[in-house]
C-alpha cells in the first residue's frame, strides 16, 4: 500500500519544513498581518461600544489609549497595515501587470517603503513636536 501523508498534519508539516524564499515569506507575512488586522477590527468595534455608555466612558477609554503602551501597540498596528497594503499592491501588480517577472524587486520596494513610513510614523508619534502635530489633527 502506498503511504499517504495524512491531511492536515501532513501539509502543516510540509509548510514548516519546505524551503522558504522571499516569495514564501511574503505570503506567510501577508496571511499573518491579514489575520492580525481582522482580529484588530473586532477589538476596534468592541472598543467603540463605550460610545453607548456616555461621553465619560468614551473619554476614559481614549485616555487609556494615549498611554505609552497603547501608543506603541498602535505603532505596531500601523506596521501591519503598511505591510498588508503594500504587499497587496504587489500581488495586484503580479496578477495584472507583469509583476511576476519582477516580484522580488517589488518586494524590496514594499519592505523599503514600509520601513521608511514606519520610522516616519514613529517620529511623528513619539517626538514632542510630532505629537503636537498629531494632537492638533484630533
Amino acid at each position: 500500500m502506498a503511504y499517504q501523508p495524512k491531511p492536515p498534519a501532513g501539509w502543516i508539516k510540509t509548510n514548516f519544513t519546505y524551503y522558504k524564499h522571499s516569495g514564501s515569506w511574503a505570503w506567510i507575512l501577508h496571511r499573518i498581518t491579514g489575520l492580525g488586522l481582522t482580529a484588530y477590527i473586532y477589538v476596534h468595534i468592541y472598543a467603540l461600544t463605550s460610545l453607548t455608555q456616555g461621553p465619560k466612558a468614551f473619554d476614559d477609554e481614549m485616555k487609556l489609549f494615549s498611554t505609552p503602551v497603547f501608543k506603541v501597540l498602535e505603532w505596531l498596528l500601523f506596521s501591519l497595515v503598511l505591510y498588508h497594503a503594500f504587499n497587496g499592491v504587489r500581488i495586484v501588480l503580479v496578477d495584472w501587470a507583469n509583476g511576476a517577472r519582477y516580484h522580488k524587486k517589488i518586494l524590496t520596494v514594499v519592505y523599503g517603503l514600509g520601513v521608511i513610513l514606519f520610522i516616519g510614523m514613529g517620529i511623528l508619534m513619539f517626538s514632542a513636536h510630532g505629537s503636537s502635530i498629531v494632537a492638533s489633527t484630533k
Partner: protein
Amino acid sequence: MKVILRIQRYNPEKDTEPYYQEFTLEAGDDKVRILDLLHEAKWKYDGTLTFRRSCAHGVCGSDGIRINGRNRLACSTLLRDVNYRKPIVIEPLPSTAIIKDLVVDMSDFYKKYEAVKPYLVNNSPPPEHERLQSNEDAEKLFESAKCILCACCTTSCPSSWSDQNYIGPAALLKAYRFAFDTRDDAGDERLDVVDTPDGAWRCHTIFNCVEACPKEINITWHISQLKKRLAQREM
C-alpha cells in the same frame, strides 16, 4: 571527500511509516550530481533503495525529489548546489502518496494535466503542410513549452498541499501553452477548466513553483496571463 545522504525510506511491504537512513559516500569533488550519489548508495550499499530516473540529463523529468527541503531534479543538482557539510536530506516530492522510498504516485498529477487537454485542437481541415504560425506568436509559447512534467512545481505549491483538488501550476502552465496558441480552437474549453476556485484562482502568487522549476520557467507569470484572460472574458 565524504558526504552523508540522509534518505527517507519506505517499503510498503514492511513499514507503516517512512523513516530515514544515512549513507556515508565517497564523492570525488563538488561537481558530483546527487543522482550519482544515489546510484552509489544503491549499487554499492543497498540494492533495495528505489528511485526513478531515466535520461540523467534533465530531459525526461522522472527524478524530481526533495533535496534539503526543496524540490529539484537529482540529475541536475550538483553537490556544490547544496550544503553538503551536513547530511544531505533526500525525500520524495512532498504531499504525494509514496509508493516506495523516493517513488511517488503521479496519477493525480497526470489526471490534472489531462484535464486541461494538453494537445492542439484545431477544427479546420489539415493543410497540405504544417499549420504555420508567426515567429512572434510562437515566441509567446517557448517558455511554457520547456516543461518536462517533473512535478517539482505542483508538489512545492502551498496551495496544492492544502487543497487536494487544486489543479496545480504544471497543469495551469499547460493550459496557457495551448490557450495562447494562435492555431488552437479549444481555448474556451480549456479556460472553463481553469476558471474555478480550484483552478487558476487558487494560485496565491507564492512563487514556490518558480523557485522549484528546474527548467527556470516563470510559471506564476503564465498563470497571471491566464487570470487576466479569464477576467477579460467576463467583460
